[in-house]
């Protein structure tokens, strides 16, 4: 193995979970993508999948009247990911203030239940802290206990 070799690089790991958002009007294909940021840290993103398989821009708001079900599904997927990959941490932030606020509300509402299985941290400015309801977090970390 003394031959000259080309330099190479490793691509960050990307893991994708798909599901369908179903209403009487339409079915929207959704995907939740975990993208490796550092060795043990993954960004999680929720996107729509268009008919040609491409990912839609997250500025498109899918109004399929099933937001609670979609968010519940995303939470189950995060749980599944953290179970499949023990020791990893998931990071996420809203693509705008409205979505970030929505995430804060959902986590605040379920925090007692969530804490039984997960550690949730919120980011304010340069600092992180253990998640507390009604704090103005702009992003979040979740790991499985």
């Amino acid at each position, binding site marked *: 193995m003394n031959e000259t070799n080309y330099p190479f690089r490793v691509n960050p790991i990307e893991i994708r979970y798909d599901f369908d958002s179903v209403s009487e009007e339409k079915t929207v294909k959704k995907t939740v993508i975990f993208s490796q940021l550092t060795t043990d840290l993954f960004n999680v993103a929720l996107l729509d999948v268009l008919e040609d398989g491409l990912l*839609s821009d997250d500025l498109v708001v899918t109004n399929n009247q099933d937001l609670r079900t979609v968010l519940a599904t995303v939470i189950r997927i995060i749980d599944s990911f953290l179970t499949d990959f*023990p020791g990893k941490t998931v*990071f*996420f932030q809203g*693509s705008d203030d409205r979505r970030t606020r929505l995430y804060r509300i959902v986590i605040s509402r379920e925090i007692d239940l969530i804490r039984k299985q997960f550690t949730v941290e919120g980011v304010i400015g340069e600092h*992180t802290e253990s998640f507390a309801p009604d704090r103005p977090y702009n992003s979040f970390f979740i790991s499985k*206990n």
Partner: protein
Amino acid sequence: MEKETQTPIGTDATQPKPDRSALDRKIAAAHETLNRLDKDALDQMFARMRANRTNSSK
């Protein structure tokens, strides 16, 4: 700097161009947030997470 996008004639001008850029933007934003975070605070956070994992496995 944001890339300029052109909307083909006959398509809905409000419909953003579908591609991977939405995901790439989210990942870039995540890196930006992480780089802004205080490293000690981040280390302490990961330590808290490890401690919770250790406690729950006992």
